[in-house]
């Protein structure tokens, strides 16, 4: 029995639906990536699952309860979301920003407890940002900054973490750095990770489970081997892809591709 799933989920306004009657299960303690062309509803789906935007019909269920009915603070203890490229948080120090991950646990004036400080320190350690604790966030590089935001999500101590394109604007080494951190969290801490990625090969390399979306509907969902195929990539991206095997990870990978002509 999976903890998190959607049922006939439709998102959009009036007649214009961005996501249509989508039913999908998010496997526990695995890495799930959502892929698809621009405007296919990847981010929209992620936001609806994390109750950042409301949906029109259907439901998102976590632990047997609809997320729209659950107390939002309680939900924030179960799932964290890192939106696409959050603003740079001018002036806040790394320690201050990460401490806001404890927000769902605080009341009143929000004094931090010893337990809070422990979690914050742990989050800084595990993301390798402890040395920047007293630095302003905007003094860091893009990769460091992204790790700080991930640290904030970690400080939320949730079993499920959502990330919307966590590697955008990062160079290759920093992209890997972020993805390997997430993989480590999944392996060592058993966190369920759901993220939107643009790079197919990264998606295949790091995910246990891939959801391929097009026009707000699932084209294929399942293991990398099932999703990263010539047929699926043709349907989703209109590309003619050559699929091979990554010699280091034994995962499927897209070696080369061309645009499909004549459509």
């Amino acid at each position, binding site marked *: 029995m999976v903890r998190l799933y959607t049922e006939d989920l439709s998102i959009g306004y009036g007649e214009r639906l961005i996501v249509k009657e989508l039913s999908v299960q998010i496997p526990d303690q695995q890495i799930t990536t959502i892929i698809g062309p621009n405007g296919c509803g990847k981010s929209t789906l992620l*936001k609806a699952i*994390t*109750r*950042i935007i409301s949906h029109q019909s259907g439901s998102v269920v976590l632990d047997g309860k609809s997320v729209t009915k659950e107390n*939002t*603070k*309680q*939900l*924030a*203890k179960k799932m*964290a*979301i*890192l*939106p696409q490229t*959050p*603003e740079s*948080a*001018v*002036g*806040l*120090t790394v*320690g*201050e*920003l990460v*401490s*806001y*991950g404890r*927000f*769902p646990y*605080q009341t*009143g*004036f*929000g004094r*931090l407890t010893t337990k809070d*400080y422990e979690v914050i320190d742990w989050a800084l350690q595990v993301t390798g940002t402890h040395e920047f604790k*007293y630095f*302003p966030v905007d003094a860091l590089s893009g990769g460091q900054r992204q790790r700080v935001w991930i640290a904030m999500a970690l400080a*939320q101590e949730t079993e499920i973490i959502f990330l919307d394109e966590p590697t955008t604007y990062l160079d290759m080494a920093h992209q890997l750095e972020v993805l390997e951190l997430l993989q480590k969290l999944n392996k060592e801490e058993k966190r369920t990770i759901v993220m939107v990625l643009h790079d197919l090969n990264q998606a295949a390399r790091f995910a246990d489970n891939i959801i391929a979306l097009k026009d707000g509907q699932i084209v294929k969902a399942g293991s990398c081997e099932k999703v990263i195929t010539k047929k699926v990539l043709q349907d989703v991206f209109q590309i003619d892809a050559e699929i091979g095997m990554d010699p280091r990870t034994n995962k499927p990978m897209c070696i080369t591709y061309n645009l499909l002509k004549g459509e």
Partner: protein
Amino acid sequence: MKSSIRFSIKFMIGLSILFAMFIVAMGFGAAETSIQDVWNALFSNLKSDKINILREIRFPREVGAVVVGAALAVSGAIMQGITRNPLADPGLLGLTSGANAALAVTLAILPATNYLGITIACFIGAAIGAIMVFSIGTLKKGGFSPLRIVLAGAAVSAFLYAIAEGVGIYFKISKDVSMWTAGGLIGTNWLQLNIIIPFVCVGILVALLLSRHLTILSLNEEVAVGLGQKTGQVKTILFIVIILLAGASVALVGNMAFIGLMVPHIVRAIVGTDYRAIIPMSVIAGAILMLVADTLGRTINIPYETPVAAIIAIMGLPFFLLVVRKGGVAFQ
């Protein structure tokens, strides 16, 4: 945490400066008084002409300066936080002009209204002004662009000032209206303060309680929701707080632009961008700035008074330009 210790030191220093400035403001003015007189006026039961002047005229006036400075600074800080707009200020976003127009209308229609009635009229006017600016500013898709909000604020303010003027001329009460709106701190009395102070205190207290909500809201709305904030509810409460603070300020001193703009920027340079520090520091810095301006206003051209609003504006305009030039980040 290290930074919180440093904050409490900064806060204590600020508080000491505020206290010292209050004594200075009490001591200088048209009537010659000594520090001894000030001390006796504040902390003894002694009576003399000078002590009475201090107690009945200067004391409420400086308390008014503290209250208004703090209220405007905090409302400016909140506005800058929720709109993520570094140019937000109650004067620039239609609250002051709305309260002004409401004041003129009230004086015209119900000339016998008591001070509480006028204060409430100011709250309503401030709310209407702000709602007009925000609805015009967010009409087009993309909403809340700093530039569009400032433009809408300028247009709505001009419109509302015109209404206030028009009402003043039509009902032949221009003089009464301008007595209120340009009066500054002259004639501030305990009767007024007794009505205003509770509103301002409640507003500031709520702002302090919601300061950490304001920080995550100022980062990114999606982050705020993800952290479990009921953003709609928080924004509504903060909006009411802004109305209370800005409305109360207009009821007491009339137009006073730029304090709400300047103070939060100065404060950010000192304590960073966490509203848990910005809000309490803004209370102190706003009060100090207002005391300085009022003391200057009373002393640079004795025996005449220079309007505080003019002094604040002279300090504020270059500051405003600096913020615009630096793209919203002063003192970085």
